[in-house]
């Protein structure tokens, strides 16, 4: 008898790519790496890489995940996950981030596109629909820190600004708007209007290299992206860089993109989305190789010479560890940033996140920061590096908690924004790695007018097909 070449860890439910049935799947370790293997009685077993390091995985999944209150409106459990979305009464997370498309029009045809845009049947959400949708979000999810307006390319919507205006309501903390940047490059006036509306722009930016741009976006749009960045800088629009990271295609550029995100004051955060093979383009993109959250974090560590290490990331407590990794940084230049986890513990950071995406810098967190700084200093034996880090920290702390002034948590969030950077590593699921254990915990949901609120990846894999506005047989 011989030992298996791999170690079985656990059983979950996955998706068979051939017959699209939910089948037993298992997490296995082999050669130090972690795979999800789905086993279809009819179509056999196949594997997808979900973490490059067994140690990283075991550490990540053993972090407690806060359960939010379940969504206010839940559907009945009738067929089991993921066929009752939703969210159904079995879902284990509130909706932290409603994500919805206002159009299926797009001025690009990206080979990596993970949605289905329709030139043949263009749809623009009407103001009435938008209002109904926003009412539904608030009814179903309650007050939210963030919403995300996307497409298609939402800047092509003829009535974009009126729609965004409708979203400015007390129950919605922050409006984020996705864009490929082509319109923003040509239309500084729109950028100015977005700034005036207080909208946060999420600019997709995947490469500085024209050849790679052609491969990723179908044509070379590097110049336009840089122009869009210039306009966003000019009007100081709070911006997130959204980088789709593709193994063997643009993973070598992450350090440069990160440096830009850290150095530019108007850029608040970098979201790295690991390539997911769904949608009109992505479904057939090649090479079909998954890059994992921990591989992404390793690239950051190598690319910053260890200024930001893998250990400076942690799983986002409100999501599954295979879905989100986060790193909060103090400082606003690449050569001076201090990872927050060097100063506070994961528990303290978890507490300050209050089950969402944004830090809630309250009085307790100030105490944790101060203690952490003392410890940092005590443990550093007075090195230059530690002295530099402390200087950065102290300056920021003075801004966050100005002596003699009292601020609300939300005011502090704003004060802190310019002096902190966040790196999110976000892995969507596709047919290869769909995992019910992750879907059940999803905080990013797609609301629609039929009064449903569906976890983003179950929407992409199972429900998009039912809405011809955003799907077409390929």
């Amino acid at each position, binding site marked *: *008898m*011989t*030992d*298996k*070449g*791999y*170690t*079985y*860890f*656990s*059983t*979950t*439910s996955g998706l068979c790519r051939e017959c699209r049935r939910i*089948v*037993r799947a*298992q997490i296995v*370790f082999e050669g130090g790496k972690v795979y999800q293997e789905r*086993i279809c*009685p009819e179509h056999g*077993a196949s594997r997808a890489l979900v973490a490059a390091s067994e140690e990283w995985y*075991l550490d990540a*999944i*053993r972090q*407690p*995940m*806060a*359960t*939010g*209150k*379940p969504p206010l409106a839940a559907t009945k*459990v*009738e*067929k*089991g*996950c993921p066929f009752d979305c939703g969210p*159904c*009464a*079995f879902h*284990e*997370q509130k909706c932290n981030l409603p994500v919805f498309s206002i159009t299926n029009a797009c001025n690009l045809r990206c080979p990596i596109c993970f949605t289905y845009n329709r030139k043949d049947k263009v749809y623009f959400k009407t103001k009435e629909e938008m209002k109904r949708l926003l009412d539904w979000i608030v009814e179903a999810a309650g007050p939210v820190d963030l919403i995300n307006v996307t497409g298609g390319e939402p800047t092509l919507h003829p009535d974009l600004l009126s729609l965004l205006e409708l979203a400015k309501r007390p129950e919605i903390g922050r409006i984020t708007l996705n864009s490929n940047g082509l319109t923003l490059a040509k239309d500084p006036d729109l950028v100015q209007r977005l700034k005036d509306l207080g909208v946060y722009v999420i600019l997709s930016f995947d490469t500085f290299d024209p050849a790679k741009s052609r491969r990723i976006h179908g044509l070379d749009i590097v110049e336009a992206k840089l122009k869009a960045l210039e306009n966003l800088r000019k009007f100081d629009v709070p911006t997130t860089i959204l980088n789709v990271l593709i193994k063997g295609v643009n993973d070598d550029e992450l350090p440069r993109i990160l440096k830009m995100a850290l150095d530019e004051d108007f850029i608040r955060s970098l979201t790295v989305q690991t390539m997911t093979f769904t949608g009109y383009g992505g479904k057939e993109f090649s090479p079909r190789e998954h890059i994992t959250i921990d591989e992404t974090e390793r690239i950051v560590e190598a690319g910053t010479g260890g200024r930001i290490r893998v250990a400076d990331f942690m799983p986002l407590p409100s999501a599954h560890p295979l879905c989100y990794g986060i790193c909060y940084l103090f400082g606003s230049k690449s050569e001076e940033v201090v990872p927050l986890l060097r100063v506070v513990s994961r528990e303290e950071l978890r507490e300050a996140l209050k089950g969402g995406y944004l830090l809630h810098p309250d009085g307790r967190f100030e105490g944790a920061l101060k203690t952490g700084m003392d410890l940092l200093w005590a443990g550093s034996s007075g090195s230059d590096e530690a002295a530099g880090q402390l200087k950065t920290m102290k300056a920021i702390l003075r801004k966050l908690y100005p002596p003699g002034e009292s601020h609300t948590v939300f005011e502090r969030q704003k004060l802190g924004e310019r002096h902190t950077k966040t790196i999110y590593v976000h892995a969507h699921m596709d047919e290869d790695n769909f995992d*019910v*254990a992750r879907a*059940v*915990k999803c905080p990013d949901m797609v609301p629609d007018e039929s009064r449903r609120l569906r976890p983003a990846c179950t929407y992409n894999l199972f429900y998009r097909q039912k809405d011809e506005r955003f799907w077409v047989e390929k």
Partner: protein
Amino acid sequence: MKRPLSPTAARLPVGEACYFSTTKSLCPACGKLVDAKIVFSGGKVYFLKHCPKDGPSQALVCGDEKWYLDSLTYLKPGTDPKARSVGTYAGCPASCGLCPQHQQHTCVPIIEITDHCDLKCPLCLVKNRDSSFMPFEEFKGVMDSLERCEGSLNLVNLSGGEPTLHPEFRRIVEHLVSRKVAKASVSTNGLGLLKRPDLVDFLRDQGVVVSLQLDGFEPATYRGLRGADLSGLKRRVVDLLIGRQAPFSMTVTLAKGHNEAEVPALLDLFFKTDNALSMMFQPCCHAGTGGAAFPHDPMDVLTIPDVVGLIAGGSKGALEKSDFSPLPCSHPACFALTYLIKLADGGFTPIPRLFDPADYLDIIKNNALFGMDEGNVGRIKDSIYRLWTASGSVPDRQAALKAIKAILSELNELKAGFSPRQVMSVTEKHVKSIFIHHFMDRHTFDLSRAVKCCQQYPQADGRLMPACVFNNLRR
């Protein structure tokens, strides 16, 4: 069979728990496979399920979140059997017994040679029908298919029903020990042994371990768990086994609120009795004819770390919680165990304390039986030599090392190529083991565990049914 839902359905405060993962479990009402969320609340681990038909239910699965999380790192690759009785995977657990996707070979087969029993225990986890005895030829066939799948076996258990009621019991035992089996054990309630004490001599002479159901010594314990006061009879069985010097194992079912207080007296007996080789604690499993109906609160049951706590607390300082570890070759949530080595003065030292944790893990990794194979003995030797040079500070350790050295020199005398049976005969004189085995019921059923099950019921048709799949879904 339709059963009531948990009386405490939806008791866990929603929103205060931490989510961990999902698995598949069983609806406690209809017994169908349903999604289960694994959540942590108040330091304990629970399943939250939602059956489309019967609605939500909850169950406690582990009394200590930290134990649960730590145990997940006790991992080792499974072993492929030489052959499998089921050729094609048709879904889990649909194609059970063992299919090509099963993650572990058959370490301990439990052969049920009859469904006759002379007791009707209120917490019985099987379904006895008093209908049949396995024909001798069928038993031989079962052994043939076991050998076909496994080659040789370290341990085979005869069970029932009450196996000693089988009219051809002796013939079956004689056949069993003639096969490629290092150790055989017989699970019994012991009543038959009192009627026929010669059976005890027979089993001893065949080298068979008597696995005696022994839940304690108090009348109330037996009235509660076994339906009658068996305390006097059980005492007599123990005396008989001691008197005849028959090697035995004590199998203790622990039910919350019934017999936790018996643990210290059971441990006393175990430590002072040379021919008591091992103890097997089984937190009550609510499956089967009796067990399912046995009154209990699924949100408040005993689980492995709770039993570890009871043992440590009842051992008069001999054992600590940290002496126990999950068994990596099974699913880590199924078994926990420790070993003790007998010192020259008659005392015992827990073996895990003697080794570096990594060495110890390596030693217990492959097998539930201490030092069973040559590679294992080699690993023990290596770590002993390392300890010899490194230690000196722990006084107890010197005595223990001496004891282990004595075992090793006895093993050396066996010369090269010793058989597992020989190794066992040497180690059982010096080493006692305590196991905790948590069988699953509808409430605690976890498909993640079933996939790696190493204890199976061989069937007449050659299939090997993982114990808890069989108990909950196939009886």
